[in-house]
């Protein structure tokens, strides 16, 4: 099973679920529509594990930075970046919502599973 669809790691006893949730920026790449994630280096990667993820008030700044990286309109531009919630599941990033997990890891149909 792709790791994105495995049960989420349980937060450590010392942290609440809310504390474990961080935010990342994502959008769809203009030229081919694939989901991409904003990295700490200011680039966009199709791999969610490359995403920069922050907590609390830093999320707005992350989104502004992601949006500003789209000022130059090129085929690699990203359409309408937005924030998503993610958790660290044993060193791998996993979106909180099913919809974003499907975006990150692909469809869950039998055809997709091969």
């Amino acid at each position, binding site marked *: 099973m792709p790791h994105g669809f495995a049960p989420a790691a349980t937060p450590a006893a010392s942290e609440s679920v809310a504390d474990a949730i961080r935010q990342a920026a994502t959008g769809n790449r*203009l030229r081919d529509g694939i989901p991409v994630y904003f990295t700490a280096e200011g680039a966009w990667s199709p791999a969610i594990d490359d995403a920069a993820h922050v907590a609390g008030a830093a999320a707005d700044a992350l989104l502004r930075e992601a949006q500003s990286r789209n000022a130059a309109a090129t085929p690699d531009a990203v359409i309408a970046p937005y924030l998503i919630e993610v958790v660290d599941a044993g060193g791998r990033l996993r979106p909180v919502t099913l919809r974003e997990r499907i975006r990150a890891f692909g469809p869950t149909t039998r055809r997709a599973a091969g």
Partner: protein
Amino acid sequence: MYRYDEFDRRFLERRVAQYRDQVRRRLDGRLSEDEFRPLRLQNGLYLQLHAYMLRIAIPYGTLSSAKLRMLAHVARRYDRGYGHFTTRQNIQFNWIKLEQTPDILAELATVELHSIQTSGNDIRNTTADPFAGVAADEIEDPRPYCELIRQWSTLHPEFSFLPRKFKIAVSAAATDRAAVRVHDIGLYLRRNAAGEVGFEVLIGGGLGRTPMIAKTLRQFLPKQHLLSYLEAALRVYNEFGRRDNLFKSRIKILVQSLGIEKMREAVEAEWAAMDKGALELSPEAIADVARHFAPPLYAPPGDDDEESLDRASRANPAFARWLERNVAAHKAPGHAIATISLKPPGRSPGDASAEQMELVADLADAYSLGEIRVSYEQNLVLPNIRRAALPEVWQRLDAAGLGTANIGLASDIIACPGLDFCSLANARSIPIAERLSAHLAARDREIGDFHIKISGCINACGHHHVGHIGILGVDKNGEEFYQITIGGSADENAALGAIVGPAVSSEQVTNAVDNLIGVYLRLRSDGERFPDTYRRVGLAPFKEALYAAH
């Protein structure tokens, strides 16, 4: 079938060139996303969860082998090797790249295919009985009228920015295989008491957030008035349909708020006052289009066709089952209509690989006079097969995974793409369909005719409202739940399903469906189909069974 003339071909070429320039300007930034979005939607290109989705129009569900081969080529070259046939007789590709779409549209144009008006607030693909022109129970071929509607509605200057999308369906048979009564306008070709053929015009049907069964706007409309009358109805909708609220903008809401009497008055008044002029269809104009659909010269049946078919059937029980379920009566002696199931148990409903499409195209050329149909139930049809050839056709289909004998049975499930693909969805539909079809397939024959329909959101692209069992995916606090309805029907006795009770979890769906089917099997009279059992016993026993199980 209809063949483009020079005007049509040049129009498509110019349209593709226009779109190619629009894409170029989007990619280099001269067009913003807000500026570009309506332009790409006018060419059927959506941005979904994983990629762009391209919806290609298949006018009234009719394909030539050349067109189907081109769709296979698109699947192979530009997508991931498969396509998805939809509940509007179109095809969708899920993995399209924007930068390749001009080339895709250019290639489609070479076989007279396009994606125009498969999105937007315009008149969409007019759908029809997939057995049109060949059905034994048909009074006249509806396809010339579908083609006339297509020509009238394409880039109609007055109706390109309607309050909302507009869908028309046409049937000319006793059995409604086009879900006519749940369309914005539905048309039944009928014969009146004087023996004349014309249209019963229905209006205000639809699914989605507020499902409604269409009402009769005009009991009998002579054929020559078809386009002028539609024009009048669309003018009334265009003027009075709501534009202030997306959820109240379909014509069904207007019909509901005015009432059918006032709606009829408004349409008839508009029709009486309008200059019908070129919209009136002379017999010559109808004949000019109808000649594209002239029945072919069917070979007469051979003397031992039925005997050889009978021998093949007795020799192979799997073929016999397919013959019984998937083959329908044709109006020409010695011929048959074969429905190809795209619902192998445990797989995504309505999908076909490039190889499967090419095989069907080959079979169409060899056995079906080059023609294929798409049904709104997400299956394909070979409409012109000699009965003696059915065993060979089935063998070749079966070898390619296309031989499932489940048409109209419980495992012949309709499902939208759902949350696995669609940006509008709240829950997944395909995995539910896969699990259910795998679970029910072994009991298909025991259960008999049964229609299960699954939608991943309230937009109801999976037609759940009109399923014998309908399943609607909802999001409850981030978890997928499924609301179950029962008693719907999409045929000439159309009915909307009733909600059985609170939504069930994904894990509970199979059990819930089992329980409901169990009630039906326990209570049905001999040979009684599900809708009749439901009408006789009501909701209560089904509700009790579902609650009792949980």
